[in-house]
């Protein structure tokens, strides 16, 4: 109870924030500092937030970050997750809306050893896969292909993969393959987006916050998009430095690898020819994902789009 006051002293919430009198904003990421969060660190380091009158603190997440609890209890303004999870939040009645995208395409994939006989996701029927139980993609591929996976809980490590030549685990294309190859394993990734499961990754906040302070949300999004654009197109070094300072495992080599994946796979910028852009959330894609999740029974009710999403800050 006594801690409801929040993080370190009363929040500073001026009505007309300026660089000198900034509005304090807390962003909860979904994992330890890593290049997948680069745009935010870039915006922070290059002073874009400060220019926009925001004093941003980035809280790192982890395997059990429980970011939604922090947003709901107003200890973070923004948090990060995939669109499918935000839809689940809405289904449970949580008053949060997704306001911008960080990744246009889902970097999740299934990591196998290069010589694994499975060539497609369908081939994984009955195989053991280390993943986070209950995630939407599992039910998605199981129902779409009529297969069953033997899910074992993800331990957020890679030792078991390295030790077992038939091991399969959920991964991010920007991450695990690097380490596996560094430890001498040849790997392949089956991307979930190829199976049709391709939710946005993005930022959400409480709906009442977006309604009460649309100016702050707008400033945050604009500065973040600026940061992301600069991170992808400019020199990512400021973000890298900030990330490495927070997360001791972040070597320049790894960050260069991850950055390369983000750029080459156009995960952040998407494909402009399809109307994708940094930060963009397309209502059609959101609707399509929602409908598909509902059709597969993963969402047990149809939800109006506005219960989990708004693109008013992206126009």
């Amino acid at each position, binding site marked *: 109870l006594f801690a409801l006051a929040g993080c370190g002293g009363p929040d500073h919430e001026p009505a007309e924030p300026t660089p000198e009198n900034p509005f304090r904003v807390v962003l909860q990421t979904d994992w330890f500092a890593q290049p997948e969060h680069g745009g935010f660190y870039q915006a922070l380091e290059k002073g874009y937030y400060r220019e926009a009158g925001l004093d941003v603190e980035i809280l790192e997440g982890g395997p059990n970050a429980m970011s939604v609890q922090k947003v709901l209890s107003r200890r973070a303004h923004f948090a990060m997750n995939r669109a499918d999870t935000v839809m689940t939040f809405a289904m449970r*009645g949580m008053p949060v809306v997704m306001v911008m995208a960080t990744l246009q395409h889902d970097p999740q994939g299934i990591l196998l050893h290069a010589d694994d006989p499975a060539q497609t996701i369908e081939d994984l029927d009955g195989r053991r896969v280390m993943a986070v139980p209950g995630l939407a993609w599992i039910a998605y591929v199981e129902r779409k292909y009529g297969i069953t996976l033997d899910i074992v*809980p993800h*331990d957020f490590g890679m030792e078991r993969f390295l030790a077992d030549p038939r091991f399969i685990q959920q991964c991010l294309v920007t991450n695990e393959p690097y380490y596996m190859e560094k430890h001498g394993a040849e790997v392949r990734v089956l991307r979930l987006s190829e199976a049709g499961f391709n939710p946005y990754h993005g930022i959400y906040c409480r709906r009442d916050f977006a309604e009460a302070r649309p100016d702050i949300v707008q400033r945050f999004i604009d500065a973040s998009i600026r940061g992301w654009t600069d991170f992808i197109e400019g020199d990512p070094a400021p973000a890298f430095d900030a990330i490495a300072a927070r997360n001791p495992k972040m070597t320049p080599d790894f960050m260069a690898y991850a950055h390369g994946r983000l750029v080459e796979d156009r995960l952040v910028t998407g494909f402009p020819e399809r109307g994708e852009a940094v930060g963009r959330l397309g209502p059609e894609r959101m609707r399509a994902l929602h409908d598909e999740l509902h059709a597969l029974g993963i969402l047990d009710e149809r939800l109006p789009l506005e219960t989990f999403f708004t693109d008013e800050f992206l126009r």
Partner: protein
Amino acid sequence: MSPTGTWREYIGWPLLFGAGLLGLWYAVKGIFALPAYTLPAPHEVLGALFDQRTALARAALATAKGSLAGFSAAVGLGFALSLLIAAFRVLRIGLYPYVLFMQMVPIIATAAIIVTWLDAGLPSVAAIAFLIGFFPVVASTVAGLHSVPSEQVELFRLYKARPWQELFLLRVPSSLPYFFTGAKIAATLAVIGSVTGEIFAGSTARGGGLGFMILIYKSSVNTPGIFAATLLCCLLGFLFVGAVLLLKRFFLRKWHDSLDTDFNPL
């Protein structure tokens, strides 16, 4: 304190307190206007329990197996190790620190090793439940084995009791009140241990247990489901504690004071 009055009390008071706690629960929920996803109401938890009854029943069975295996191993091996430690001074001095050491290793650090050696599923889950419940049994039993009144030890020494006789005929019976305390702690930890095990080493194919269900409910933000699974954990735990207490009554009834002056079912 007539027997019937006692039984009435032993049912009445917990019910009363239970009702009070339920009231408190509703009150907290009402006062802070907490939605179901933060704190579901008791009836919402029961609803989830009903909705998910088949999945939860299967999960509870899996967890029960893991807990039972882990608990039996913790009590059995813990007791055995305590005996060894009490019997051999060298082990007590030389090995006990490393037993403590083992106890202090976080599961997350060992889980990968355990799963690698034992494979996911029941064996690993039971191993983790075992690791969690093991030390309380050892610590309590060793304390009990060392708390024998010195005159009784002298009696045995005088009669030239062999070490194993001193151990089994004196130290073991004398340590039972301590042992049962340790076993009671292990019993409450058995289900927790199994759930923790499932979080690190469960498997859908092997009927992921309640821990696995909690992970799933967590991913899908099903708070009433989490509470329902938790409720089952607690009920399972009570079964274990109850079993320990029955055994304790059976073994100590005749001679130990604590049962005589205070009949205390828990």
